């Protein structure tokens, strides 16, 4: 065994660690550069606000963009109340045995289900069994269920960061448990809950598989009129114009990808800003 000078091993270790970190950055950088390079020229008000034309080989992406916004809103409506209320029950009320354990394991499993399986599940339950048809309702419910684990987990983490003393003081002043949660705990957990929710939504907005069978339309000449209508959605639209329709200009494909990425990025930035502002304010 040759003993290498520790000074050299230190340098080697540093080099390898730093190089690995650099490798993490490379794909992010490449994705952004490629998409911006080919997508930016396509980006215009016209592109965002007009319908696809000539069999989606020209025109804009307005229906798909709007569909994705609708789906994100629908996801929020279904997953936020259930997620937050369930998380409050688990963290603040449930005793530490039996039922609580079962629910916790269920949440972990829910988080591990592949998104295409959510899609099939949504197809079976909402589209066929409950007869919602392929619709905004079915798609939102499917995405909502997929987002639940993230919302529940981040809500529970946020509740956990609220100091125990806030709960004690409130109870000691004669508050009920629910008053304590509503007045002393939730206001201080809200930024964390918001951050987690936005991150969950931004993931849902970019998913393709869950909406594939439940809501997404190949092409629709008009906007959805109700929650029982199908809708176009950005991720699926991107898939369609990239693989299903021949001779689509590269700039339209990359432009669509760019809009999707910017949408998700914008949501993540909002989440980061909320978290940063909260950290600054938090003094306990």
């Amino acid at each position: 065994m040759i003993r290498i000078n520790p000074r050299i091993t230190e340098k080697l270790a540093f080099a390898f660690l730093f190089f690995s970190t650099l490798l993490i950055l490379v794909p992010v950088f490449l994705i952004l550069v490629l998409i911006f390079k080919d997508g930016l020229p396509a980006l215009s008000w016209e592109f965002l606000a007009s319908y696809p034309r000539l069999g989606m080989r020209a025109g804009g992406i307005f229906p798909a963009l709007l569909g994705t916004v609708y789906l994100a809103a629908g996801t929020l409506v279904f997953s936020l109340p259930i997620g937050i209320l369930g998380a409050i029950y688990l963290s603040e009320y449930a005793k530490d045995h039996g039922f609580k354990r079962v629910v916790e394991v269920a949440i972990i499993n829910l988080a591990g289900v592949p998104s295409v399986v959510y899609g099939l599940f949504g197809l079976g339950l909402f589209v066929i069994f409950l007869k919602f048809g392929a619709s905004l309702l079915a798609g939102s419910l499917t995405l909502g269920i997929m987002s639940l684990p993230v919302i529940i987990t981040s809500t529970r983490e946020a509740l956990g960061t609220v100091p125990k003393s806030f709960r004690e003081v409130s109870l000691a002043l004669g508050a009920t448990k629910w008053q304590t949660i509503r007045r002393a705990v939730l206001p201080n957990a809200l930024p964390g809950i918001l951050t987690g929710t936005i991150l969950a939504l931004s993931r849902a907005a970019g998913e393709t598989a869950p909406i594939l069978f439940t809501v997404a339309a190949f092409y629709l000449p008009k906007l959805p009129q109700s929650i029982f209508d199908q809708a176009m959605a950005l991720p699926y639209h991107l898939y369609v114009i990239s693989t299903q329709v021949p001779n689509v200009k590269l700039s339209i494909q990359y432009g669509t990808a760019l809009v999707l990425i910017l949408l998700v990025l914008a949501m993540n930035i909002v989440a980061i800003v909320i978290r940063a502002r909260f950290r600054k304010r938090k003094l306990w």
Partner: protein
Amino acid sequence: MNPKISVKNLHLHYGDFHALKGVSIEIRPCRVTAIIGPSGCGKSTFLRCLNRMNDTIEGVKTEGLITIDGEEILHTGADLIRLRKKVGMVFQRPNPFPLSIFENVAFGPKLHGVSGPKKGGRAPSLEEIVEKSLRAVNLWDELKDLLKDSALRLSLEQQQRLCIARLLAVNPEVLLMDEPCSALDPVATLRIEELIHEMKKDYTIVIVTHNMQQAARISGETAYFYLGELIEFGRTDRIFTSPEKKETEDYITGRFG
């Protein structure tokens, strides 16, 4: 004089740990009663029995009899909300909410729908309650123009006074204080002690303290706890000058603890 709080044969188990072993004590109204003893002797646990705060900890079993103004508080149907309004608590570390000074004091009254003692048929407004409570802890003059500021900007002493004001705003009769000065410097400690001295004419105060000089300075009665048992209880001047029990003497002369 009837005791304000009467405790008979109080036992408390934390899972397998026998934390309080048959404590019996009678606490007189409008007095300061100090509870002293080495760490882990059950002082705080005992204090937290008096407003049932131990209920929030899983695995705690309490047996015995505690009556406050003749009313038994340990039975399962006891009205905890009324009990905790009547028996307030000040904690070791000042723990204001990350809200404005005003909102901190208004927290309790808002919980209970702002119901104060009626004066000439009119309930006091939230503003009046906040002012009265802040005056009672001598904070009004320095903070009256800063009520909208965050309570977290105050000094530790001011924060602890604010926490006491927050408590007074719900009109308690008994104040439980769990080492209220342990996070404060000696000067602030003395000033809080003065406040306790002023408050004892209106409130029954039970204070847990590590600091024997503090117990001697502020209390009328002193109880010495050791390993979950009440070893000795009596007038503070007597406990500190001629304790009856050997253990008490060892502790207060600093031979251990």
